């Protein structure tokens, strides 16, 4: 009898533990990871609001992220280890004091992605790391969003975008591409590449149906999008494709180039030889020009559109074009 009651107590106790665990997970409301929870809670509570540190340890991977804010300047790093060996590490810095700093981020992400791609890390490893970050990101955001500075939290997205851009580039056998998301430019979200954002087609169709039923005056861009979607059969549609009905990728890129070029040119008005990225200055760098030569001037003039790339050399930046007269509207 005693033996039976002991077994009964063990079963009841086990069931109680299981039910409590399930209840906690539901209450948490996010996908709460098990291994990192203690680390994460300990670390973010110890550090001030302008410093972030967390580690994810799962499936033989150890992902370490740290970032620090100092007078508007943010430095961050992401280190990934597999079986205790360094797989890769990415450092990402940006200065929010700089004018139009947001417009420069997509180029920085592309640059870092190209560096990561050149390290020849297998796509499987990159995808596994990306999936791990995806699994934990909602929980991390929910835990730190109201405790940490938003600029510090946003660094996670830059690292995620760099990994995603590298994966896309390897999969498509193409150069690294990342178009800055308009929502980031108008402070609606953290940094994201348009290429990584997808809409569910049926959800988009129903949202547009609702919009057309509530509004009698539909603009031509939306009409074109509705017509396109009526024959579109894929389950998802990329943000790139969706947004191109309102602003073409080309116009958007022209707008970004124009804004970045006009902001970087202003700082060199006092330099005797002009700016480091001006025509005639040998090389392409920020700050004052250090060496001006007629050969470099002819070369720069011939490379206004960076074609052919062998002649215009790696790192060529096309000249900024004026946005078209029909002024660009960002949605």
């Amino acid at each position, binding site marked *: 009898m005693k033996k039976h009651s002991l077994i009964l107590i063990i079963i009841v106790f086990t069931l109680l533990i299981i039910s409590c665990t399930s209840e906690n997970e539901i209450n948490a409301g996010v996908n709460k990871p098990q291994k990192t929870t203690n680390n994460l809670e300990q670390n973010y509570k110890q550090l001030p609001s302008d410093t972030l540190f967390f580690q994810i340890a799962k499936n033989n991977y150890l992902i370490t992220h740290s970032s620090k804010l100092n007078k508007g300047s943010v430095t961050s790093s992401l280190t990934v280890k597999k079986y205790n060996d360094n797989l890769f590490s990415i450092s990402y810095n940006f200065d929010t004091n700089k004018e139009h700093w947001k417009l420069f981020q997509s180029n920085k992400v592309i640059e870092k992605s190209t560096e990561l791609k050149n390290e020849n890390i297998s796509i499987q490893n990159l995808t596994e790391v990306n999936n791990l970050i995806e699994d934990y990101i909602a929980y991390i955001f929910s835990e730190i969003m109201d405790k940490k500075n938003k600029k510090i939290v946003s660094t996670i997205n830059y690292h995620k975008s760099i990994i995603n851009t590298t994966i896309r580039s390897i999969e498509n056998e193409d150069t690294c591409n990342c178009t800055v998301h308009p929502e980031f430019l108008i402070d609606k979200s953290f940094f994201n590449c348009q290429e990584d954002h997808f809409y569910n087609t049926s959800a988009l169709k129903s949202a547009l149906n609702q919009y057309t039923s509530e509004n009698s005056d539909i603009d031509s861009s939306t009409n074109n999008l509705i017509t396109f979607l009526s024959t579109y059969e894929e389950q998802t549609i990329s943000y790139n494709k969706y947004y191109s009905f309102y602003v073409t990728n080309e116009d958007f890129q022209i707008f970004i180039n124009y804004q970045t070029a006009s902001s970087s040119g202003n700082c060199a008005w006092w330099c005797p030889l002009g700016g480091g990225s001006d025509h005639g200055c*040998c090389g*392409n760098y920020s700050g004052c020009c250090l060496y001006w030569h007629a*050969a470099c001037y002819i*070369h720069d003039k011939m490379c206004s559109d960076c*074609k052919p790339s*062998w002649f215009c*050399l*790696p*790192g060529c930046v096309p000249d900024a074009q004026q946005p078209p007269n029909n002024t660009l509207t960002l949605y």
Partner: protein
Amino acid sequence: MESSYSTQKILLYLSLFSLVYFILIVYWSYSPPNSTNTIRFIGELLTIPMLMLIIFNFIYALFQILKKRKTKIFITILALNLVSIVFLIIVTINQLNS
């Protein structure tokens, strides 16, 4: 228009150097290195003079061959510069069409 042996040797080495230079910058255009600052600085300064040099060397070597002067060394110079020119034309067409 008799050129000395040392001039011919200089032309030969310049042709060889320009071929290697263009092979390198074409290679870097397909797989850019992490830091491009030095390449851009030297490249912007040297690319146009190098292009002029290979065209000059090609025409000069052709002229010397037609005049039947020191044919052996000038055929080598002509061949090297011809390879450079054809190589760059092919790469340019390829990159403009891609």
